[in-house]
Structures are given as structure tokens and as C-alpha cells.
């Protein structure tokens, strides 16, 4: 369920919208359980349902309402000293991904986070494989322009890198 939620957060960049997306996805999945195709993976099926709800319902409504999206900093909250190093690296990665246009963002997410093949990404997003390839190439071109990730300054050992 955390996997569904983070996809919802990636798309919407808002926690409460991510919550709603997970709920709507589960309701839809239960209604349509009969359409689930035997032999395919249920997690992929759920991701594709979430994607279509976002595309057809939530995003359309939000655009009409003229609401903006929140900054990526809000997405990851840091609790004290817990794994600060991991958090800082993770936050940098997420911030960079969040800065990509939505179509590239979700393609990067499905391919590199969920580990789907190009064909599977194309099926979830309902686009041709060529579109997946061009989105990934465009996203990687942008991501390559950032400086390397830097680790957090460690007070005892000095700079890590």
C-alpha cells in the first residue's frame, strides 16, 4: 500500500490527494475485480487504475479549481536524527524527479522505482513504447545536468564526499 501511496504522491505532490487516490483506487479495484486479467500482476493493475483515476478525475478537477501543487520539500518529512544521511540523499533524488514534467516524472517512477520494463510502463500509462523511450531520454537529459548528489555534512567526520 505504501507503493500505491507514493505513486499517488508522485503524481499529485500532495499528501492528502495521495490518500484519496489510494482510497479511490481500492474502491475501483474492488468494483472491477472481475476485469483483472489472470496471469498479470495485481500491483501493476492497481498502479494503472491509480494512474487513470489521477488522469481522468483528480487532475482534471484540480486544474479547473486552479490549485497549485506543493513544493517537494513537503513530501519528505524528516524526523530528527533518524537516518539523516539516507533522508538527505532521498530528498535530493525526489526533488529532482519532482521537478520533471508530470509525464516524464511518472515514466521515470514506473521504470526506475517500480522496475517495470518499457513494455509494462507503456501498458500502465496506455502510451506507445516509443513515447516511454522519448520521455525517459528527455528526463535523463535533464537529470544529468544536476551536480552529483551530495551527502550531508557529518559534524564528526567532516564532509563525506
Amino acid at each position, binding site marked *: 500500500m505504501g507503493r500505491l501511496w*507514493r505513486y499517488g504522491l508522485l503524481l499529485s505532490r500532495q499528501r492528502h490527494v495521495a*490518500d484519496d487516490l*489510494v482510497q479511490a483506487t481500492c474502491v475501483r479495484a474492488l468494483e472491477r*475485480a472481475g476485469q483483472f486479467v489472470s496471469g*498479470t500482476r495485481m500491483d501493476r493493475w492497481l498502479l494503472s487504475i491509480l494512474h487513470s483515476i489521477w488522469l481522468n478525475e483528480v487532475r482534471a478537477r484540480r486544474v479547473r479549481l486552479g490549485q497549485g501543487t506543493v513544493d517537494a520539500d513537503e513530501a519528505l518529512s524528516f524526523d530528527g536524527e533518524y537516518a539523516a544521511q539516507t533522508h538527505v540523499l*532521498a530528498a535530493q533524488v525526489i526533488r529532482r524527479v519532482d521537478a520533471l514534467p508530470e509525464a516524464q516524472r511518472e515514466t521515470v517512477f514506473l521504470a526506475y522505482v517500480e522496475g517495470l520494463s518499457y513494455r509494462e510502463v507503456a501498458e500502465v500509462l496506455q502510451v506507445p513504447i516509443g513515447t516511454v523511450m522519448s520521455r525517459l531520454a528527455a528526463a535523463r537529459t535533464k*537529470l*544529468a545536468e544536476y551536480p552529483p548528489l551530495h551527502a550531508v555534512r557529518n559534524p564528526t567526520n567532516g564532509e563525506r564526499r
Partner: protein
Amino acid sequence: MNATPSDEQLVAYLDNQLDTEQRERIDSAIAADPMLSLRLQWLDRSSLPFKDAYDELARQAPVARLQAMLDTLPPPARPAYSRRWFLAAAAGLVVSGVLADRLFLGWLLTREKDNWRELVADYMALYVPQTLAHLPVDETARHAQLRILDARLGLDLAPAKLLLPGAEFKRAQILEYDGVPIAQITYLDPVHGPMALCIIRSNSGRQAPTEEQRRGLNIVYWADMEHAWMLIGRNPTSDLTEMAQLLRSRLSA
């Protein structure tokens, strides 16, 4: 002479999404053109630890709130499931235990309801230790879970009455098929794995503890005037029978 590979092709190369022939073509193009090798290195700068970062994010998902929300969802309408469908789906069930339960119960709807023990055995056969291992053990939650069972099935369950030797109480929840609620109390036995005590309302009369096997699981079932009970697990039947006697003596008290 090959055309220079595009960024799309180079990215697909980095992502290992090309077949052998395409790969070889790019390998030789790179060997012939140092600029192409630089371009590939440049693109590869974008290979970030994406998965680690988002795994970190998933750990912050409000799982408890989402689970609570899922518990309030209505049971699924009767869809056209098949056994094959469910078993295939079970392999992919990494998303949510609760959702899995709901979907499974949707599938159960299509089954004959004359033998609830068969249904439970089908269900329990899918449990592995990992299904239960990470469930938090929380006294308050356990009480709340049992109150729900009490209310739905007219029971009077207390955690102390349900303790079993060796097996750890993990979760109590209501399952349902065709409008018939089934109480499921799951335990994790360190040696034999998942175990469950399941209860439905039944007025077909008392029945002394009886042993049987279904789907490779051992079962001891019995009934009193209002409920039918079953204990199911991979524990030896003799152990289950002893546990059943313990439960019967406590629960009838």
C-alpha cells in the same frame, strides 16, 4: 554504416531494454565514436538511486490511516472470478494485506457456501509466516478488533481466553462471504507458521471436536449451540486438538 544512435536508444541501452542485436549495434557504434561514449556517460549521470529514495518515501506512507480507510470499504459486488484468477493474483499481492483479503473474499463469493471450512482452508493455504510476521502487536488494537468480532457474531472474546501455548496472537478480523461473517483470529507459531481460529454463527447443533485435513492443513472443528469453530494450521493434529480443548474450556466458562 550505422546511423548514430539516438538518446532514446542510448537510454534503452543503459536500461538494458534492448535485444542482443540492438545492443551489439550500439556497442560497435560506441567503439567507433568516442563522442558517443561521452554522451552515454553523460546520460548515465542521471542514474540516481531512485528506488532507495522512493522506498524511503513509502516508509512514510500513512499506512495505519489507509488500512483503517480500507476497513470501511463495502465488500465487493459479486464478480465473475475464477480460482485461476485468484491464484494468479495472489502471487502479486504485495500491495495491501487488507485489500488482498477483500479481493479474496470477492472471489469467495462465487464459491459454494456449504462448506465454510473449505473456504477457510483455501484462504489459509495462502498464508506464509511473512504474512503475519510484521503485524504490530498492540493491546489496544487487539481489544478493538475483538469487540468488532463480538458485535458481528454475538461472541464474548477476551484476549486472555484466546492465548495459545507457543503461538503468538497476531490479529483478529472479520471476513465475510455471501453476507456470512467469519471471525478470523490469526496466530503465528514459530515452528509451524500461521494458524487461525475461525468462527461463524451456526445453529446446526453441537459437535464434538473432529479432525480433518484440507489443502495440506490440519483442522480441528467443533460447534456449540450458536457457533461453529475451527482451528487450522500446519501444527500436528494432536497439538491442535489440545488447543481446541483449551479454547473450549475457556470460552464456555
